[in-house]
Structures are given as C-alpha cells and as structure tokens.
C-alpha cells in the first residue's frame, strides 16, 4: 500500500510541480477558444432552446480539456521515464501492475479534474452556468478523465518516441474531441455525420456531461453513461493487461 501511495504522490507531484504548464496553460487555451467561438457564433441559433452559445460551449470545452490533459498526463509521464531511463526506479521495486494502473490513472484524473475545475471557474465569469444535476457532472468528469488516462497508459507504453505520442494526440484524440459536439449539438449536423458521431465515445462523454448542466442532451444520459463506462472498462482492461505482460517495459 505504501508503494502505491508513493507512486501516486510522485505522479501527482510530477505535474503539480509544473502546474503552470500542466494546469494553468490548458485553462488559458480553453478560455481563448471560448472567447473566439462565442464571438464567431454570436447571433447564430443556440443549440438548445433557452441556452446561450457561451453556456453551451463551456461544459464542452471543460470536458475536452479534461480529456486531453488526462491523456497527456499518463502518456507523457510514461514516455518521459522510458526515454530518460528512470522508469527503472519503479521497475525495480515490488510494485504490481495494479499499483501502476491505479497510481497513474488516479493522478491523471486529478489533473483532469483540476483543469476542468479551472475552465469551469473561468466560465463562471463569462456566463451564468446552470447546474441541473451535480452528480452527473461529477460522474462524467471522473469517467472521462479516467478513460483517457487509461488510453494514455496504452499510448505511453506503445510509443518509443515523443512524436508517436504527438501523432496519437493529433490523429486520434483531437479529431475525436472536435467531432464529438464540443462546439455544436450534433443535431445541427447532416445525417451522415450524425450517425458517425454515434460511434465516437467522446460524444457520449460530452453529451452526458452537458446533461448535468442543462438537463437536456442529444441522447439519453443513461446511454451516455453506459457507453462511457463500457469504453472506460475496455481501455482499462487493455492497460492493465499490457502492464501485467510487461509490454515494452520488461522485454
């Protein structure tokens, strides 16, 4: 247990010591998105009746930032320690694959939540943000961060170079977040893209999260919850299996 706690503390300190880059910077980025998109979209029809564009954007941006940062935390921690070789320090002690999994996922979730909270606090100054059901907000915030943290473990184990992590981010994470309805309701899309969106787990994350604020969503919140939970379970199983097999860690 002490071994696990130590690894968790180290993983949290690792981003907290550079919180300016790992927490403040992403909050600023999403503030910029918010200012620009709210300006561009001003005057156009809001996605939900009675919800302004700014109100609509803020939860989507918060979730997008959480997902990206949870992924960045596990993947960059693993690739950094693999490349510098100091992964050795955690491979020599008697830490189990479960210790690894939970320490990495919890630390990344903490970062995701910290960043999400930051976006939310900034959002409060920009618009009135209703809270329809705080429990759903928290459930999706946790699930979304944890799911991307698990995906980040898989990417971090698989990658041998920083560019591969960047490719993962640019060709998988970014398209999936941008096409998940962060900036629009998918009902505004042509039928083909609407159908396609339903295969994107990120869509359910954002839709369910938004439901917690407005009590309105594109699909049922229970469906979103099931998909999110299922995706989280699959990615976690993958991550734990790779950790247990020692994939690229203990050849």
């Amino acid at each position, binding site marked *: 247990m002490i071994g696990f706690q130590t690894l968790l503390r*180290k993983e949290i300190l690792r981003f907290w010591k550079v919180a300016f880059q790992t927490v403040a910077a992403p909050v600023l980025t999403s503030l910029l998105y918010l200012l620009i998109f709210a300006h561009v979209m001003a005057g156009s029809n809001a996605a939900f009746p009675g919800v302004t564009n700014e109100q609509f954007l803020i939860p989507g941006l918060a979730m997008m930032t959480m997902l990206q940062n949870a992924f960045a935390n596990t993947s960059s921690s693993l690739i950094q320690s693999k490349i510098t070789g100091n992964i050795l320090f955690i491979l020599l002690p008697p830490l189990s694959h479960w210790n690894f999994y939970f320490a990495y996922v919890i630390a990344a979730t903490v970062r995701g939540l910290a960043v999400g909270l930051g976006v939310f606090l900034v959002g409060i100054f920009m618009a009135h943000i209703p809270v329809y059901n705080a429990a759903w907000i928290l459930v999706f915030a946790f699930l979304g961060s944890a799911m991307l943290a698990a995906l980040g473990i898989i990417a971090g184990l698989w990658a041998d170079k920083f560019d591969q992590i960047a490719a993962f981010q640019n060709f998988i994470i970014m398209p999936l977040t941008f096409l998940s309805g962060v900036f629009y309701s998918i009902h505004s899309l042509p039928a083909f893209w609407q159908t396609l969106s339903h295969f994107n787990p990120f869509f359910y994350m954002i839709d369910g999260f938004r439901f917690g604020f407005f009590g309105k969503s594109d699909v049922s919140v229970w469906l979103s919850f099931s998909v999110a939970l299922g995706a989280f379970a699959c990615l976690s199983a993958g991550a734990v299996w790779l950790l247990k097999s020692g994939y690229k860690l203990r050849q």
Partner: protein
Amino acid sequence: MTIAIDVHGVEKRYASFSALAGVSLRVEEGEFFALLGPNGAGKTTLISCLAGLTRANAGTLRVMGHDVVNDYQAARLALGIVPQEIVFDPFFSVRETLRFQAGYFGIARSAALDAWIDELLAKLSLTDKADKNMRQLSGGMKRRVLVAQALVHRPPVIVLDEPTAGVDVELRQTLWSFIRELNTKGHTILLTTHYLEEAQQLCSRIAMMKEGKIVALDTTEHLLNAFSERVLRVKLESELPVSLVPLRSKQSGAWHQFEIHDYNEVETLLARLRESGAVISNLEVTEPELEAVFVKIMRGEQTLGPAA
C-alpha cells in the same frame, strides 16, 4: 547456508542473437562475488534477468530463494541493484529521490528512515548535495545517488553493475570500504567491474563470462594460482648465461623474466646466475595478477571450473 543468488540454465535471445547461452551460477549468502567479462559478455543482461527488467527465455533465477517471476515481490524486496547506466529523475532533489525509492519498497516516512538516508548520504559523501536537484549533480555524484537508492531498503543482496566507472579515486575507496562494511554485516555482494584489481582485492569468488557463457568460476585464490605465475625479473650487467636461456620466458633489453611457481625457485635461479658469473644490477618478484588470468581465459588458452 542460504543461496543468495541462484541462477540455473538461463538463456536470453535477442532475435537470433544469444546474449545468455545457458548460464548457471550460485552465490551464497554473505559472499563477495565478482562477475567479470569483456564488453558484451552478457553481465548486464544476466543482472537484468535477476532484477526482473528482462525476461529470460529459459531457465530459473532466484534471489534468497524467491523466484524472480513467480514470487517477484519477495525477490525484488531482497535485491538492491546499482545499474550500469546513469539515470535520474530531474524533477526531484537527492533526498526526495531517496525518500521516493524507499516508499516504492513499502517503507513509510519515519525518523528511522530519515536517519538511514542521512547515514547513506554521509557514507557516500553526498551530505552537502542532499537538497540539490538531481540535474545539478556531476556524473560521479549521480552514480553515488544510484548506489544510495539501491541500498535505501536495506536489501540482503546487493548487485553493483560497474559502480566505480567515472567515480574519482577517493570516493572509490570510501565506496569500497562502505560496501565491505555491508558485506561484513552479512549482505551478499555481486559486483561487475572492468577494474580487475578491484575484483582481486575485494572478491572471494569470481565468475568470468564470455559470449553469454561462464568460462571460469572459482575462488580468487585458485584462479590466481592456477593461471598466473609469479614472475622473477632480473636486470643483468652481462649476457644471460646460455644454460639459463631455455628457462627464460621473456626478455626486454637487459631485463630477463622467469616464471616461478614458488619462492624456492627464486633461490635456485639466483644461485645458478651467480655460479655462472652473471652480475645482477636489479631484481623484482611480481605477484600473480587477475588481469593476466583474465587475458588467458578470454583468449581461450585454458578453461576451468564448471564451464558451460
């Protein structure tokens, strides 16, 4: 006696290349053991298998009786490894690095742990660097931190993979006196080094590896006696008497060299030189050296012990 390190029939292949080709080795508790061999012999690979950093393709490895695969947690608790390559975490100071390492091994923060960390820092002359970030340390200092990290959980078995590469003379001596002290207290030490005189002075038993195999395994004393002769070197003012030429093993200028097996032979040789009227202007007897043994074994002139 417990077997501290028990390696049996270990093979490790990288693609078609065989880095370990059936290595078997036993180190008893309390031994100071050297694992020697040229670059690429497979020493680090064997240590990696022992530490669970690499999985062997065949064979078994045990540390203090614990299998490194099936009972990996107990095996790793019993093992302290000083890696060959210098690695460090640039996020932390020396003291933080050591506290984290202790934590990974399940040791909670306590006054006792802090005292042990202070002792380690003092023994390794790192006290004034304790609160410096790892990035601010020189290469040799980083290596000393690696030594401290390996010892922070007080492992009964300590493996040092070239711990003195890049470490200055003074620290090398303090390091060895510290490791010796640990050995006296009952810790088992396995050492690899390319400084053969270190191994000769410190280790009671030696294994030599070549191309993934053990080619010699014996006590230091036996290896020295069996492979390396004492040498008598004499400098003559005159030519070497013809009758003694067949006994000479080497000549360079006025120096003539004779291999001797015990000291009585020195007497005999000197008597014969005097009898034949040779005038000796200088003379020395050299002790056997591990380096000579190593060179002979690596050339494959002879093999000894349970070679694979």
